[in-house]
């Protein structure tokens, strides 16, 4: 119905659409932790796209009209693009679909190490640790990827990858459990999902206003950006500290010696920051010393009586090359 309207009128509708979705988001901002920063960013983007400020100048009499057209515009956009994702509160299935896409892209950059025994071993450790998390029922997938970098990645819905380079630095199962625990923590706390939600909201505004929506139906790949870009992006520093705390907690609950994660942080701390293998890791994470100090503050004396944890170096899977 609106498709034939003059551009100017259409722009107005679209601006109200964006405003309406912003409003909806701001109501749930506590849950999504998006807050004012997003609103400001979106406003700025709208201004850039339209060359006008978005100060709500819509007269009160128009409001009824606006509501109906907004709904139409929203419906039109959802039917245009398949599959759709409810960005305000993605379902578990939607979350998994996003994670699968991101992980597929990451695997396009660095494939799995072709060693089934290794992969199954890592999946066993990861699955056991994930079972002690707050989201034991996700279909957890773990993988070791061909890269000499020291890094680990996670994606929404339960996808966790670590590099062969990082695996090579480990000497026991407790360390592996700690590192996987950190990534499981990101998934449980939905750190990446929140970034994607925020990003998608901005994309939504941008694509509406630049009328690109019809050209690209792949809403998932649109949301996650190009390739595995999301995996190269930094999370909030506090998200990393939180994942460290969760990772240590999950590994400890699983019966492992709780200092596995901090062992690895110590090793990372001894790596020359100018080494290529840690370039991306150090760019996207607080430095290991800072992470250790922060974990130390949270641990305090809480691990003083945890003396029965296992390191299981004897069954730690040795890489073939």
């Amino acid at each position: 119905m609106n498709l034939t309207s003059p551009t100017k009128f259409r722009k107005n509708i679209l601006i109200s659409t964006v405003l309406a979705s912003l409003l909806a988001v701001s109501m749930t901002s506590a849950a999504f932790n998006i807050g004012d920063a997003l609103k400001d960013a979106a406003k700025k983007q709208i201004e850039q796209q339209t060359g006008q400020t978005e100060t709500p100048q819509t007269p009160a009499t128009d409001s009824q009209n606006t509501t109906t057209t907004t709904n139409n515009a929203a419906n039109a956009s959802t039917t245009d693009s398949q599959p759709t994702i409810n960005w305000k509160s993605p379902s578990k299935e939607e979350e998994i679909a996003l994670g699968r896409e991101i992980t597929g892209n990451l695997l396009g950059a660095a494939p799995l190490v072709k060693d089934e025994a290794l992969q199954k071993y890592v999946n066993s450790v990861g699955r056991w640790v994930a079972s002690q998390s707050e989201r034991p029922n996700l279909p957890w997938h773990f993988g070791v990827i061909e890269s000499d970098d020291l890094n680990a990645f996670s994606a929404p819905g339960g996808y966790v990858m670590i590099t062969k380079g990082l695996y090579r630095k480990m000497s026991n199962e407790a360390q592996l459990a700690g590192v996987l625990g950190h990534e499981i923590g990101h998934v449980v706390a939905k750190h990446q999902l929140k970034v994607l939600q925020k990003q998608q909201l901005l994309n939504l505004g941008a694509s509406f206003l630049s009328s690109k929506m019809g050209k690209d139906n792949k809403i998932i790949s649109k949301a996650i950006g190009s390739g595995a870009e999301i995996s190269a992006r930094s999370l909030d520093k506090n998200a990393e500290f939180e994942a460290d705390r969760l990772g240590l907690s999950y590994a400890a609950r699983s019966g492992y010696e709780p200092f596995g994660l901090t062992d690895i942080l110590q090793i990372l701390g001894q790596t020359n920051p100018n080494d290529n293998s840690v370039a991306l890791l150090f760019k996207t994470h607080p430095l290991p010393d800072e992470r250790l100090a922060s974990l130390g503050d949270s641990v305090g004396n809480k691990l003083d009586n945890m003396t029965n944890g296992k390191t299981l170096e004897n069954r730690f899977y040795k890489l073939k090359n």
Partner: protein
Amino acid sequence: MRKLTQWLIAASFPALLLANNSMAAEKGSALKNDSIRFEPYADAKVTGSLSRGDSLEIISKKGAWLQVKSKKSAGWVRLLSVKRGSSSSSSQVGGVLAAASGRAGTGQVVSTTGIRGLSAEELKAAKFNEVEVKTLESYTQSAEQGRQFAKSGKLKTVSFPNLKAVPNQTAVNGGSK
């Protein structure tokens, strides 16, 4: 028993100090201000203190504690108050102090494309690989398989609530007790 341990530890000090001269003891540095204790217990007598950045030698590890020796004193300190590794090499890149000031220093890290590295550029250019995802999914273990795996390693779940954030971070106030 505790008395005996104390005596044994005290008696072993001279030997350890001697040993350190010949052996390359692991070096470390203090990540935060903390107390040095006579024994690896929270209620053990305080015998000294560490200031952030102090270099030290790591003698042994026991549970959540490290036995260390600094210029000022020797004894046991919490494991997570110590950064392992030689402080001289880390000072080249700013070390503990740079870390404490946040990520300011990391801006200088040059991200070049190394062999098999995973740079931001490579990740961005990556193309979806369905075959690899299917392979990944084929390795998936069920919760029950996870339990069996844990059982075979004699892993037992422990009650341990998730760690919480501490409002006053070390970087700000040092966190010594």
